[in-house]
Structure formats: C-alpha cells, structure tokens
C-alpha cells in the first residue's frame, strides 16, 4: 500500500496484514508496511497505538497472530529500544556497552562508532551515569556498530532536550547518506522529523493514513503541507503530557483535499 517509492531502492523488510490481539483488546489490525533502503519511515500515533509493537514484530521480537513478516535474508539491523535501564549493580563502561555483541572486542570499531555520533568523550564513563540525551546517542552508536542496513529506532528523541533533538534527527539523516541504511522510527517529535522523513505512517491499532512528504528543503511547495501538519505538534503534546488520555484516533488528520501524497 506504500507503493510508489523509487524503484532503485531495495525493500529491506515488509509487514503484510499484521494482526495482534491481547485477549479481547485489539492491538494491531491489518497493518502493512514496507521499509526501503536509504529511506526514513516514521510511525506516529497516540500512546497505546501499537507503534512499539509494530517495531517488535518487524524485528522478530514478537510474533503476530495474523499476517506475515518478511525481512531481507541476512539483513543487518541496528535497534534502539524504547526502554533502556541498566541495573546499578552491573559495572559497565560506555565503550564496553557499545561493543558488547562484538565476538572480539574491537576498540577501534567502538571508537569509530562513538565518534560518528559524537560520544567519544563518554567512552570511559559508566553507562548509568549518562543523561537521557547521552544515552540515546550511545544507543545509536551501538546500533551503528554493526554497519546496519536497517535502523529501527523506538522514540530516539526521548529524554533529549529541544536543542539536542534537532541535532539528533539531523545526525540520523546525515548518517543515512553515509551508510545508506533505511530507518523505521517511532517519533513524537513530528515537527522535527518531518523534514527528514520520506514517509509518515499514522497508526492507531490500524493505519489511519500514510503519506510521503517530500524533503522540505527540496520542495518548497511542500511547506504548505508541512504547515498543515503543524497541528501534528499535537504529537508533541502527547509526548509531554502523556498522562492525558483525551485524544482519540489519528493525530495527523490531513484534510482530504490536501492529501497529495497519500496512498491507500
């Protein structure tokens, strides 16, 4: 349903008609998506919309009840999970953490990855001493270590201050050009990721709407739609006030006459 991508891009992973229930409660209903190389797909939606679940199903961490999951054979994946907490009783430096899954410790590779995301000064520190923003970058450095073809980021902006947020998304996008990875991301910071997102998929148990916003810089006429998406600042609203539950349905209700890029 998200057809129309440039044909030079490779499909890295694909979900088809995914369904999942927890008892009576519908978690996901008929969710289909494709992730392409060198392309950013951002999942947005209210809390409890099943965004993280979609990522976990795509990663093979959770099995769907219906539908199929396809990943390119031999696909290298980098993952930044939504929740990360390291027990204080586990002494672990940032350097060790980044290289934890290397079969042999490779200080040079760890340093390269840390330099890429700008955390090389943190390498000797304990993981538990990191601030929220530092932790997200360190998680990103670990995800990049394996030279991933697909980056799966679950709210990479959490705990990052406003100025840092913009830097972080720019970094993810800049490194995309270097590594050529595809990105599947859950984000609440829509106003920030919009310019760097190739597709947006709005999820609320099912896919409410999906679109392919062009990069703002290259297509000035798209600024209009970007402007229209400003109310998607509502997504930031749920982020900062996530104890409020008065929001229902899709948080990016594109008016029908402005859905230039909408498919399906």
């Amino acid at each position: 349903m998200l057809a129309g991508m440039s044909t030079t891009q490779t499909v890295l992973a694909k979900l088809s008609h995914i369904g999942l229930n927890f008892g009576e409660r519908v978690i996901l209903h008929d969710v289909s998506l494709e992730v392409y190389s060198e392309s950013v797909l951002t999942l947005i939606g209210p809390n409890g919309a099943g965004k993280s679940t979609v990522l976990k199903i795509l990663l093979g961490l959770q099995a769907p009840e219906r539908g199929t999951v396809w990943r390119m054979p031999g696909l290298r994946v980098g993952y930044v999970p939504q929740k990360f907490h390291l027990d204080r009783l586990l002494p672990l430096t940032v350097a060790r953490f980044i290289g934890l899954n290397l079969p042999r410790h490779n200080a040079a590779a760890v340093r390269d990855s840390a330099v890429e995301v700008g955390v090389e000064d943190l390498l000797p520190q304990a993981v538990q001493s990191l601030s929220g923003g530092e932790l997200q970058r360190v998680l990103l450095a670990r995800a990049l270590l394996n030279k991933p073809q697909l980056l799966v980021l679950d709210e990479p902006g959490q705990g990052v201050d406003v100025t840092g947020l913009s830097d972080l998304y720019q970094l993810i996008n800049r490194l995309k050009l270097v590594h050529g990875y595809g990105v599947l991301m859950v984000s609440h910071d829509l106003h920030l990721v919009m310019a760097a997102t190739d597709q947006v998929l709005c999820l609320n148990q099912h896919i409410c709407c999906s679109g392919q916003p062009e990069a703002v810089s290259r297509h000035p006429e798209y600024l209009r739609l970007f402007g229209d998406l400003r109310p998607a600042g509502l997504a930031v609203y749920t982020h900062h006030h996530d104890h409020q539950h008065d929001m229902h349905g899709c948080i990016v209700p594109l008016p029908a006459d402005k859905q230039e890029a909408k498919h399906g």
Partner: protein
Amino acid sequence: MDDFIIRALLAGLAVVLMSGLLGVFLLWRRMAYFGDTLSHSALLGVALGLVTGMSLNLWVIAVCVVVALLMLYVQHNPALGSDTLLSIIGHSALALGTVALTFLPNVRVDLMAYLFGDILAVTHSDIVLTWSLALVVVGVMVWIWRPLLSLSVHAELAQVEGVKVWRISAAYMLLIALMVAVAMKVVGVLLLTALLIIPAATARRLARTPEQMALFAVVVGVCALLAGMGLSLQLDTPTGPSIVVSASILFLLMQLLPQRGA
C-alpha cells in the same frame, strides 16, 4: 588439620567458585527469587531420593532441573504472574519435601542438615561430584559469558543482535540448578541464595568491569568460607549459617568503602 575439615574446605571452595560466577548474573538480572525457588525445591529432591532409595544427588539435580525449566517457561509467559507462581512452586516443594521426610519409616533424617547445610559431613564422592560440576559450570560460563552478559544488559537488544536468548538463558538456569544440588550440603536450602547474592553484592564495590565483579565475588566467597569455617570450629556454631554470617559482615564492611567505577 583433620581430614573432615580438608574435605569440607575442598567442597566449599568448589561451591563458592560456582556461586561467585553464577551469582553476579542473578544480581544483574534481578533474579534472586529464582535462587530461592530452586534451592527450596531441592528439599523435594532429597525426599524423593530417600523414598525411592536412590541417589540423593541425582534426585536433587533432577528436581532442580525440572523446576528450572518450569521457571524458564514461566519467565517467558509473563501472563502467568512469575513472582507469585515461583514463590508458590518453591515453597510448595519445600513444604512437601519436609512433610514427606517425616513420613519415611525407618529413616532418621536430620532435617537441619538439609535446611542449613552440613559441610563437615562431606564425603570423598561429594568432593568429586562438586568439583566435576564446578568445572562444568566454569567451562560453560566462560563459553556463554558474552551472550549472557549481553542479554542481562538488554534482552531484546541482544536478540536483535543475534544472541540466542532463550538457549543462553536456559543454559544459565540449568547451571544454577546443578550448583544448587551440590551447594545444599554446604549451606543448606534455606541459605543457599545468600551464597549467590551476598558475595556478588559485596564485590560490586570493588569492581570496574563485569569480569572483575565475578572474580571478586569468588574471592569474597572464599574469604567467607574460610572465616565461616573458622568461626564454626572455634565457637562450635553451625557451619553453613556461619559462612553466611561471615559473608554478610564482609558485605557490611565493604559498604564503608567508596564505590569504584559506576
């Protein structure tokens, strides 16, 4: 030195070697309850061994392995409410074992020896078994160290990066089951978890890396073993609890030091 003291020391050393290596992961993964459930279940193995007249060690190992697998299943099905269920399994096995022991005709069972250990009654075959298992534990732990550490840090991240989380978890739990079966002689089923937890927690203060922490946990375990046995021989106190008291004192002393690393 008397022969029985040397035997006790040999068995004790093998046990603290195992408990140090295994205990740190129990701490990091917040699985102390797991140690309790397993060690409590061991008493059911003792009862079954006495009832059937077969090898106690084998029965204890069998029961611990079955319980470990059961717990692994429970852990991967959170809907079952793991803490509660594990507590029920462990205490039921402990109670059932105790009740079963009292019904045995013609067998005089020293229940205290199983509950609090009887390291001074260790036999030569116990030593052979304990050291054999200790070598297995050390070997497997070295083998699975990296993936086990990785999944202890973050299981999903490890799985995405290719760690066979289920298999490594199962291997680790089986090692604890084996350790419980032989450590029962040293500190008994009630205090066994203390031997896994206290040396590891004591070592945290000194360690900068996970490996250092495991190594220091073994060292602390050896110190507690020696101090506890010394205490026991001097004051005629029960040996198992004396070892645990020594470990606790070491833990308290260590809290006076500033924390290194993290």
